[in-house]
């Protein structure tokens, strides 16, 4: 088994209508129920917009805070899900279902295997 990060690539722009969002919420819930039942779900979360972000960086030994995301872009991370899958094809199959539920691009990226936390997550 291997851990994969599924990232929701959200475009910058106006929020979709409440009706649209309600349907997405419903479809995501159906998807989440399915992936949990299959034992492939590890964790997920949706994020507030990039305007709520703060960046901390060290400058001459002192932490400096800046308002906003680390890079302004046309797209940002809207949410994510961590899953476990035997190989990339299995992870891509989940990503396809997720992209159908959310109608946004999903980036699939493998975790490095070495970290102890990753091993623990895989054994659970």
């Amino acid at each position, binding site marked *: 088994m291997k851990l994969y990060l599924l990232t929701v690539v959200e475009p910058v722009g106006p929020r979709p209508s409440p009706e649209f969002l309600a349907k997405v919420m419903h479809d995501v819930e159906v998807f989440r129920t399915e992936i949990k039942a299959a034992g492939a779900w590890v964790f997920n979360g949706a994020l507030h917009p990039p305007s709520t972000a703060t960046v901390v960086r060290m400058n001459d030994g002192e932490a400096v805070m800046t308002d906003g995301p680390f890079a302004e872009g046309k797209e940002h991370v809207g949410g994510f899900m961590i899953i476990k899958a035997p*190989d*990339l*094809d299995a992870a*891509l199959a989940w990503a396809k279902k997720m992209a159908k539920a959310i109608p946004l691009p999903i980036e*699939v990226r*493998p975790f490095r295997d070495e970290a102890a936390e990753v091993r623990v997550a895989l054994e659970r």
Partner: protein
Amino acid sequence: MFREEHGRAVAVLVRLFGDIDVAEEAVQDAFTKAVERWPATGLPPSPAGWIITTARNAAIDRLRREGSREDRHAQADLEHAADEPAEEGAVRDDQLRLIFTCCHPSLASAAQVALTLRLVGGLTTPEIARAFLVPEPTMAQRLARAKAKIRDARIPYRVPDASDLHVRLRAVLAVVYLVFNEGYAASSGDRLVREELCAEAIRLGRLLADLMPAEPEVLGLLALMLLVESRRSTRTAPDGGLVLLADQDRNRWDRRLIAEGQAIVRLCLRRNEPGPYQIQAAINAVHSDALDAAATDWRQIVALYDQLLAIAPSPVVALNRAVAVAEVEGPAAALALIDALGLDGYYLFHAIRADLLRRLGRDAEAARAYETALTRTNNMAERDLLRRRREALR
């Protein structure tokens, strides 16, 4: 023989060791040993089996030298397996696995092509770099990145399920056809290298046809490549200039390739599961039937383009169909068809338009269209032909 055995041996070793680099290096070792020993000892009874066994032993030796604990487990299993002869059916399955892994949709097209040529085709990195006109370090990096992605993202070593097979097969066929077209594109790069690319694409096509004989599009692609290849030597004039289909010396077309390609096309027609490659092959088969350009059955070609447009509509297909229409209904009908296509960036659109205008006696417009076409291609042979056509108007 080396290239063929290279692909087979790498395919088997990737399955045994689960690591492309280990497999490649071990197969390399085995070939080095073969070159050293065979001249003295003569060919072993089964050279292919010898290569695979020797490579397997080389990989086990290497793992033992560098061995971690986990590797020692794997070693025990492997040493057990080392004496089994490489069974033919299993080798074929491994070759298919390797092909589908190299052409996995999560790899960029350029990476798919490079990996397929390197691992399945057995070409060296410098050979692939030369063929695609990129510096060798760039090609080496492209291959290294692709292999790292296969390992780190765990791209499986597996033939896709029936539900995915057709989509995935399309990617494999696209890679092979891309290799062929790269080789066929006239007058850029070393000519020998390019001819070799076509030969390699056809070899891959034959391998696929052998491994997946039930897939009609696999056969269609092979037939298409054979029929196009049959005209290669007549496509270039002694001075390197491009010779169009109508002006080629048909006595010099390769009859053996044509016979093979046409036999496959007939087989596909009997199966009646048409697809884009099969229809393109059929169009080329009609051209191959005509002993001179005037004898071409253009009605049949228009009908085949109609079929191709129905299943794979594209402006380029529509443009090619219009060329055939010009032969059946005349240049005016064809001109009316192509003006709506919106292919302004494509040199052939302007070249074909110029030709139709010339045949309609509209010389000034034709000259302008040739001029426009000239601004849309950098290929020397194509430019040369366009210039000659424009000059002929005066």
